[in-house]
């Protein structure tokens, strides 16, 4: 496959023209960095991002590279440790002079590398959906910020399910807390009610107590944004406690196909997820993407929301570099606003001047086979709004 960027390989312009700032660009090669955790607790989540970025880069190379140059990858391991992320980011920018870096997953790792990227004027493509309240000239956010995920999801469940009351659950750190703050505000502004809000330490495995409370309070919607392995315990215990997700509405923004694999489809079937991407999306771009991904990494792989967003990074960078006619970070940044990908697996995306993507929000219904059935998508692309008024 020629890759989603399309176009004909251009004749390679001289290195002195496309690189005036001393990046690692030669006549035939351009070096980029991949910076994710392949060890430690986050390896489970970040593996998919690494795979997607490598796939995109391989496809770009196969279609002739960028400005006639093949992409070379230097991969570093953030090891689920935020200071390590900062150190490796510095290495990739200062020692390796990488033209762009694709990486990070947790907000904590992004916050750790942010000063490094700003000081060294590097370029980071960050794939995870996140809490927003951030905008850096050195970062492009290819996942959705909070309003693109939360507001559309809550609107849908209120309209389609007539939901009037919610119970908010989450893991205890910045992303779930900020997201729930936005969710609560939106719920209350729309005349519905929050019956309870609770947080659990990462890795928590005992949810019996909160499940008992939910049974007594009987909310219309359980709004669960528990992160990582805790989800397995949560959904298994929910089912064991006799809460039937075909009768009790549950909406999550933290469970993708990746987590479902650990949870077991039969334990979460009937839950709704608000994401911008599902592996089951029915369009030509996505079919080609899923096939290429499985061909490269194995037929039993599943692809979640963040994995797709990671795949967009190299393609968006390629488009911006070609528009700028240069690898220089300042020129790439300037060329980026308005860049669109008509061939993204999620359908279509466009870079907003605030460095986030215009994208659609979709609601998926979890099925027993571990995939989601897409029930709804926003009619229009949602404008990214990392600093929503009244929600801070």
């Amino acid at each position, binding site marked *: 496959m020629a890759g989603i960027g399309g176009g004909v390989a251009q004749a390679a312009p001289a290195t002195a023209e496309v690189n005036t700032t001393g990046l690692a660009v030669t006549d035939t090669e351009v070096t980029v960095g991949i910076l994710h955790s*392949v*060890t*430690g*607790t986050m*390896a*489970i989540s970040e*593996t998919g991002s690494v795979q997607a970025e490598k796939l995109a880069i391989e496809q770009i190379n196969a279609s002739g590279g960028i400005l006639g140059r093949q992409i070379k990858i230097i991969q570093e391991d953030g090891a689920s440790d935020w200071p390590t992320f900062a150190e490796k980011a510095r290495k990739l920018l200062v020692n390796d002079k990488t033209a762009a870096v694709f990486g990070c997953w947790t907000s904590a790792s992004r916050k750790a590398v942010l000063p490094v990227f700003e000081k060294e004027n590097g370029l980071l493509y960050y794939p995870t959906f996140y809490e927003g309240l951030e905008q850096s000239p050195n970062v492009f956010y290819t996942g959705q910020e909070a309003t693109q995920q939360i507001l559309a999801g809550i609107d849908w469940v209120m309209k389609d399910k007539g939901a009037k009351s919610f119970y908010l659950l989450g893991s*205890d750190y910045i992303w779930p807390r900020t997201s729930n703050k936005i969710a609560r505000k939106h719920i209350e502004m729309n005349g519905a009610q929050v019956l309870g*809000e*609770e*947080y*659990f*330490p990462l*890795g*928590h*495995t*005992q949810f*019996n*107590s*909160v499940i*008992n*409370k939910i*049974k*007594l309070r009987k909310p219309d919607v359980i709004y669960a944004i528990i992160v990582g*392995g*805790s*989800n*397995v*315990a949560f959904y*298994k*215990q929910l*089912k*064991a*406690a*006799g809460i039937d997700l075909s009768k009790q509405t549950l909406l999550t923004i933290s469970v993708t196909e*990746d987590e479902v*694999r*650990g*949870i*077991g489809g*039969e*334990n979460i079937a009937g839950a709704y997820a608000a994401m911008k991407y599902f592996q089951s999306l029915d369009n030509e771009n996505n079919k080609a993407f899923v096939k290429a991904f499985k061909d490269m990494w194995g037929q039993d792989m599943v692809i979640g929301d963040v994995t797709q967003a990671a795949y967009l990074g190299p393609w968006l960078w390629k488009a911006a570099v070609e528009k700028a006619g240069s690898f220089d970070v300042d020129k790439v940044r300037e060329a980026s606003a308005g860049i669109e990908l008509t061939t993204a697996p999620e359908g279509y995306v466009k870079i907003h001047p605030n460095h986030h993507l215009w994208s659609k929000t979709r609601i998926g219904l979890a099925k027993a086979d571990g995939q989601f059935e897409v029930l709804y998508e926003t009619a229009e692309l949602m404008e990214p709004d990392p600093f929503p008024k009244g929600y801070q």
Partner: protein
Amino acid sequence: MFDGYTASELVSILAMQGFAGLILFSVFLLMALGLAIIFGQMGVINMAHGEFMILGAYMTYLTSHLVQDYAPGLFGGYFFLAMIVAFIAAGALGLLLEWALIRHLYRRPLDTLLATWGVSLILQQIYRSVFGAREVGVTLPDWMMGALSLSDTIEVPINGLFVMALTLVISGIVFLLMFRSSWGLQVRAVTQNRVMAGAAGINGRRVDAMTFALGCGIAGVAGSAFTMIGSTGPTSGQLYIVDTFLVVVFGGAQSLLGTIASALTISQSQSTLEFFLSGSMAKVFTLLVVVLILLVRPQGLFVLKVRKA
């Protein structure tokens, strides 16, 4: 604190929280029992305890797949087979580890801490290479899912009851082994006075090896039980190790009775607090209680009187 609940709801709360606490108690005890045997009886701080649990979990995962592929008719009962496999695998690895490493480090508790920490890192990497970095989950037979209704508002999860029963059985076996068998007598003799025990004809080396293997085997069964509530990844073991040490240290390292009492105290306070506070705050208060009690009783809740000379 009790706003918004009617009297009958409060009764349900108390009943269901009581059960939730009992289930948590079983989980804690299952985690801590193996560690307490090794730590209490042998003075070895086994930092790889969590990884032995995870070995049990991976064995359960493998067994579930093998049974599903080759004998789907037996799927309803695979869990019992899986627990035996988990016990044997973890116990055998424990035996190997004791022979290769631990026996050279007896009487040097801090060195065992470092050495077993290294072992835990090595095991994590092995799991990552063999099973991949992503978490895996096992499918449970239908009869293990669902809840038992005791009344309209009181329901008890079946897999919770299963863990409780399992804990009872294992604690019973350990009790019989320790206090009603000649092997248990030997273990206790070696613990109290190694030299005298040797003089009385007890093979201390063999007792050590078997004790360590037993502790690891129990960890394996615990891991097997955890697949019912959690998923299994290379580093999942680390999530449990802190709670496990908390239970053992709080109970008084050398007393199995202390381990039980401590697991009960911690689980009940955690479960009760969790209902009226949020999950994170309940944990904070539980830790606070433990710290305060350890300030007053640094040896833990229960202490075995041992002659220290």
